[in-house]
């Protein structure tokens, strides 16, 4: 019975423990623990005692969550197919470059521009992921090594290309055409002028497709089989090499979409990055806490976004902003040591069972 709910219980326990660590640190430092929770509540819902409901907060929360969910889906997809796509960060960056270049260089009418830009980002990510994929299949090189190296290539290489796009300054490109962006007056207006954009719809669709492809289709079956046991899949008649490349390219496509979201939604221009913004690496945490399943990733993306947007609120309340990072790192830590959590859960569960059965015996 415990096994069945393990996937839900373990992340929940990790989240609670993570919050406890945060509280403990505040207590030791003599800070107001209550402010932590009211800050988180405000970040999540916009409710703050003594002032009006401000939906701008949940709006911004979603804006932050969208790229995180995409990279979470990217890492999760690769993981379900037996790969560790640590190169997702580079795929986000290259995806951004492709999206912004498409938006600036290919004028299309109406919503076609937005759709084209979106796909350009995704395809960019997929192409960037193809490199570790083909190297893995042809030369048996670990996708982790090539992925990490390509992250740097993407970071510095893309900065060069962003700089030479027409209208670029030293820090960013020109603004993309309005019809290439995902900005939404409607979504913005219902969330008190937040930057909330149509990307929220795209990410929901992507999450549903993720679930459907992995769990429900023969294509997903094939990719999962290859991921678990490549030789076994080959024996079964599955084209295993092709599956490996497709898996990581789909993962790259999702990471590339995170790049599109940054260009089309969060900002409306491409940026020159001084250092990695680590969306790809945050995606690892999101996927890990979300147990690599669709709904889990969506929720854990929201959680990490919440911890990140609450930082400024907490700072205003006199709590150091680092507390958000402490909590999210603790959560990751506790999920990573899930075997220890499992061990204690199993033990207490068994004890209960034993207690019950000995009571029965006594009766």
């Amino acid at each position, binding site marked *: 019975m415990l096994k069945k709910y393990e996937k839900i219980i373990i992340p929940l326990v990790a989240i609670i423990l993570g919050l406890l660590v945060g509280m403990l640190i505040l207590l030791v430092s003599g800070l107001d623990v209550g402010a932590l929770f009211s800050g988180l509540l405000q970040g999540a819902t916009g409710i703050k005692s003594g002032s009006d409901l401000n939906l701008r907060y949940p709006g911004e929360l979603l804006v932050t969550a969208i790229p995180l969910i995409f990279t979470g889906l990217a890492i999760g997809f690769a993981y379900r197919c037996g790969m560790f796509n640590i190169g997702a960060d580079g795929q986000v960056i290259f995806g951004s470059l492709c999206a912004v270049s498409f938006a600036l260089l290919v004028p299309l009418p109406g919503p076609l521009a937005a759709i084209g830009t979106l796909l350009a980002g995704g395809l960019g990510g997929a192409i960037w992921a193809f490199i570790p994929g083909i190297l893995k299949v042809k030369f048996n090189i670990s996708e982790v090594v090539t992925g990490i190296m390509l992250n740097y290539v993407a970071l510095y290489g893309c900065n060069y290309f962003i700089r030479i796009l027409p209208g670029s300054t030293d820090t960013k490109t020109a603004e993309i055409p309005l019809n290439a962006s995902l900005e939404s007056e409607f979504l913005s207006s219902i969330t008190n002028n937040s930057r909330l954009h149509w990307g929220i719809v795209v990410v929901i669709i992507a999450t549903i497709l993720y679930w459907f492809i992995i769990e*429900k*289709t*023969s*294509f997903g*079956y*094939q990719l*999962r*089989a290859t991921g*678990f*046991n490549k*030789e*076994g*899949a*080959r*024996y*079964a*008649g*599955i*084209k295993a090499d092709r599956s490996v490349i497709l898996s990581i390219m789909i993962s790259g496509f999702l990471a590339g979409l995170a790049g599109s979201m940054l260009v089309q939604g969060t900002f409306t221009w491409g940026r020159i990055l001084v250092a990695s913004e680590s969306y790809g690496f945050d995606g690892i945490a999101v996927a890990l806490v979300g147990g690599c399943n669709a709904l889990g990733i969506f929720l854990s993306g929201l959680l990490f976004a919440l911890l990140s947007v609450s930082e400024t609120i907490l700072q205003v309340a006199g709590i150091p902003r680092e507390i958000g990072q402490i909590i999210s790192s603790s959560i990751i830590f506790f999920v990573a040591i899930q075997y220890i959590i499992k061990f204690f859960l*199993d033990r207490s569960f068994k004890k209960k069972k034993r207690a019950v059965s000995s009571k029965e015996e006594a009766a």
Partner: protein
Amino acid sequence: MDYAIEMLHVTKEFPGIIANDDVTIRVKKGTIHALLGENGAGKSTLMSILFGMYQPNRGEIKVNGKTVVINDPNVANDLGIGMVHQHFKLVDIYTAAENIILGREDKSMFGPLSFANASKKIKELGERYGLYVDPDMKVEDMTVGMQQRVEILKMLYRDSDILIFDEPTAVLTPQEIDELMEIMKNLKNEGKTIVLITHKLKEIKRVADVCTVLRRGKVIDTIDVASTSESEMAKLMVGRDVEFKVDKKEHEFGDVVLKVEHLNVKNARGLSAVKDLSFDIRKGEILGIAGIDGNGQTELVYALTGLSKVESGKVYLNGKDITDLSIYDHYEAGLSHVPEDRHRHGLILDFKLKENYIVHSYDKAPFCKHGVLDNKEIDKYASRLTEEFDVRSGQGIETIARSMSGGNQQKAIIAREVDRSSDLMIIVQPTRGLDVGAIEYIHNRIVNERNKGRAILLVSFELDEILSLSDRIAVMFSGEITGVKKAEETNEHELGLLMAGGHSNA
């Protein structure tokens, strides 16, 4: 008489399973004591406890009458307990002598290793126990039987008095088994105590004095071997009567199903592994391929099933050239394949049982419509196979394959491959590591398929299996067929000679 080993009321629990439940065995000094049991009966766990690899939850261990705590294999070594593992633990590129002294080297502080003393001792030991090994030969150049002798010498060199043999005959030819049995008797006569883990009744009958039967972690009985028959032992082990003979009727064979012509295959290292093989199999016929592991059988099967490329030659299935088809198209042409390695090929271990049933057909109706899996159909099919083939597992068709026992994993694979009703079945090592109950079942299934008119290629390293199932037997040695015999016209001895590279007319 004194006891060399006493394990008293030993209990070892693993999460969710009790591997040893209040097990008590007493091994007398200077005897050969067999441990008999099905897979998962707890034999290996018990010996791992004795060898210091696991700690028991409860119970006491006495060696030579003294209570001891063995929490490390080194402690076991110091107590004079040695173990010959099923998979040898030797360094291939070292010589026999180097392997034997490894960890016990004579050396001066800065000087080179000294082999003088070691070689002398190895020679003495070899002569005393009839263990003939060339101390300067590299392990990689040795036959499996010789490697095993090196392992035994390694224990003797360390002055072990209590020797544990874990399934020692699994990898040997009949002649090598004979030699091993002699060696074990010699060791006994020289005062050594031996514990023999096995599920082969014949071997127990030949060498053991006493046999303890384990079933589901419990001691069922400890018996005197001389006064107990094989079938009685089998009954104790399985818990019911076991039929040893397979019911196989004579019948006419039909058309040629598989035809192999001048087949050449290279192995992973690029060396020639199958050399100019030609043979055919007819409808309703079982062709057994006998031979010692590593004589080209694996490469032959890989080539026939498309898993590896054919160097030259042709393979025809029902007259159609399938030599260069993809793996997928091999299956489409009418082939099923029970692979040698059930974990590497046969199963996706992290998939559920039901998902493992459809590895060949996940993309076909009725399991898949327009690319979407139909879980209802899959469940229905999986339940039927599970019931029909009596595949047992914790959570039925939802069980993760990894958590199933070896026997049931194998039954699941057999179920899947048999149910595909292919004209040609290639079956490799169908019963490796299984207990007599499961073997009986699987053998009957294979013969049943033969009787239905399938052509079957059976590859096995177990001569008994080959002899009792096959209609014709081809012996492979070093990539070539050294002889083809009718099953009823040959015997273990003749096949054993062929397997070792001799010719039957020599």
